[in-house]
Each structure stands twice: as C-alpha cells, then as structure tokens.
C-alpha cells in the first residue's frame, strides 16, 4: 500500500465535483480520442511494415 502521503496539494483546492467534471472532459474529449488516434496510427504502421518486410503488397 502507499507509504508516502498522497500529494493532493494541487488538487486540494478543487472541489470534488469540479475535479470529476474536469477529469471527465479531459478523458472524453482529449485523452481517449488521442489514444484512439495513436492506436490507429500504430496499427497502420504495423500493417505497412509487415507489407514491406513480410507479406509484400496486398493481394
């Protein structure tokens, strides 16, 4: 378990509901879309490299 005290200094000033809304918006509008984009790009690159090195162009 945690041995050090949680560092809530920056978050202490924010009220619980405000924190919730902030996290919700960040996650839904920024974090998860960005994650989706990154995963798609990575998938695309993986497929491209496998076409270059392993399978050749699509048939």
């Amino acid at each position, binding site marked *: 378990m945690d041995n050090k005290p949680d560092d809530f200094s920056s978050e202490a000033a924010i009220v619980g509901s405000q924190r919730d809304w902030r996290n919700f918006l960040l996650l839904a509008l920024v974090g*998860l879309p960005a994650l989706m984009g990154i995963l798609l790009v990575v998938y695309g690159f993986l*497929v*491209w490299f496998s076409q270059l090195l392993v399978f050749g162009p699509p048939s």
Partner: protein
Amino acid sequence: MKKLFRFIRQLFLRPSMKIGLGVLVTGGFMAGILSWQGFNTAMELTNKEEFCLNCHTMHDNLLPELQKTVHWSNRSGVRATCPDCHVPHDFTDKLARKMQASREVLAQFTGQIGTREKFKEHRLVLAQREWARFAANGSRECRNCHDYKDMDFDKMRPTSQVAMRNAAARDQSCVDCHKGVAHQLPDMKGARNPAFDTLLSSAIGQSVSSGKDYYTVVPQDLFADAELKRKVGAIEVAAKVKVLQTQGDAQQVELTLWRKNKGYGRVWYGEFGLNITNAVLDKEVAQKPELVTVLASKEDPNTGLEWQQVQAKLWIKKGSLIDSVEPIWTIARASYTQSCSVCHRQPLESHIDANAWPGLFGGMVGFTSMDADTAKVVLKYLQSHSSDFSNKPHAAAAADATLQTARP
C-alpha cells in the same frame, strides 16, 4: 513521472463523487461517436483529388497527363480520381497506405521530387512501385469500376477483342498490359535490370587466362590502345572474345567475326550469314588493314553477298568477361518468359530463324516494359537459340499449339 502514473490510476479506479453513471457513460459514448466520425472524415478529406493536388509536384506534373486520358474526360462522364486507383479501398490496406504516405509528406518537405527534372529522374521508380502493387493485387482498384463479366466484347475493335477475351479468360491483372493508361508511360530506356548485377559481380571476380575464350556481360567500348584512350567501336553483350593479355586496367581481346563486304563493313556478326551483331566499329577504323585482318571470304547463298571472316585485336576495360555464356542466357530466358507471355504464350525460340527474330522482336518489344539493355540481351538469346541453332523438329501440330482460341 510517478505523479502521472498515480494520476492515471486514480482517474480510472477512483469512482466519481458527484457525477452520475449515466451522464458519464452517455458523454463517453457521444465523444466516441464524434471521435470515430472525425477519424473517418479525416480519412475522407485526405482521399480527395483536391488534397492530392495540393502538392505542386502532383499538380504540375501528373494532372496535365491525366487530363489527356479517358480517365479524366470521356463520353459518359464517369471518371476516376487519384485515390480511386492509387489508394486501396478496404480499411486496413487504406490505413496502411495512409501511414505510408508519411514518406510522401517527408519527400514533399525535403523537395525530393520538387523540380520537373528531379521528378522525371525519379518517376520510373515511382511507376515501378505502383506496377508492383497492381500486379500483386490483380489490379483490384481497376475492378472497382471495371469488371470482365460486364464487358461487351462485341463493342470492341477486333484486335482488342482477341486480347481482351484472352485476358478475361485468365482474369488477368489489367495493368499488365494497360500501363500508362492514366499517366504518361515513363521512359523505359534508362531503366536498369537488377538481374545484371549478378552477372557483373561474377565478371569482376572472373579469373581470366590468356588464350581462352570468354563472353562479354555488358555492351562496352572497344579501344585501339592499352590506355583505353582511342575508342574505335563498341562490342555487344554475350560476344565471344579470346583474351590475349591483361595490362593494368585493360584487356586485349581478339575478335574473330564475320562482316558483309559492302560499304565500310563495320558491323561485325557472330556467325556467317546470320545478322547477330557482335561488334560495331567506327567508320575510319573498319577499313584499316593494320587493325583489321581478313581471314576468309565466302558467299552467302541466300543473298549472293560476299561475307568476310575478319579478325581484330582490340582493348576493353577489364572485369566484364565470364567464361560461360549460360548465365547470360538464364537471365535472358527469364526476361523472355516474363515479358513475352503476358498477353499470349511466347513462341518457341527455335520456331523462328535468327534473321527473322529482329523483325518480330522489334514489332513486339514495344508492348513490353523491357529496358534497352534487357531487350538487347533477350534478342541475342532468341537469335542464338533460333532454328539455325536447333535440331528441334517443327511438326504441323506445333502451329496449332500457338493458335489463338479466342476469335472476334
């Protein structure tokens, strides 16, 4: 860093204090829909002709070429845009191609084909990539609009019908024949055949002894002097020479060939009576007795022309001879089979005689994508394996074997 991980862990694991579950899930759901739609829109926007034409290389070089073809403007008004042919249509392949486009973005910013000259230098490579892609997927992008099953062959010209019916029977990849259908065909003459590299490396490693016969692997210049300063002509590929001596970078070789005793007599042939060119000398040199010795004289019964057997001792740059001609023929045979069986079964080499092959070959090579060097080697191969060199019988059945089954 640790703070970041802790923040994320709490973000996901600590339950919301004030906001209801339904609100959160609905909000996430809507955000997900918006994100996915945004992704699709981005894919669509980068898949439009206007987007492709944003790069001036495309706009200045390729758009004018496309505008001259039937895929731009035609009787029915149905046309293809850049992505219709160049971007795969299904999701995974399309996404991979979009990621591959990062290479193109980089090229745009580094100006790799920024000028017309740079583009012209590079366009064969670009074209060959696309041809390889179409060959691998059987011209799948063409088939988004065109389909053999829906073609009305009777509406085509008779010559087209024969070719197209054959292609339909084999479900052939469209671009095998229709290269350059939407853009100008790149100049194939300057292309390099990578198969020759293996020949060159074996030639460089070949140990050469004087007095023995060797074969050239590349066409090259002939010189009168060991310093290789006075050029007197050129020798063709797969020409047999006898090596006399090696001095530094040069090798002295003895050519014993035949020439027609007419005019300058500067075209030298490998065999009596056969137009298989092995060397061509310059005009001033071909008649000089100190360079050219006449060994024998014979009349060709076919034409009544006098042929002379001639000999010359000339110098070439060393490192381009091999002791057997077979590796050259192997490459030529592969090129012949690959290039000349795309539209029809290629004729037996020995079905035609050596003097008839150049005409036939010249009439057909334009339909292939052979570069100039490969074409020369293939013609030499065909002539050297023609009926003049073969004992294969030519029964009447052989003619039926090459008959076209498709008829307009």
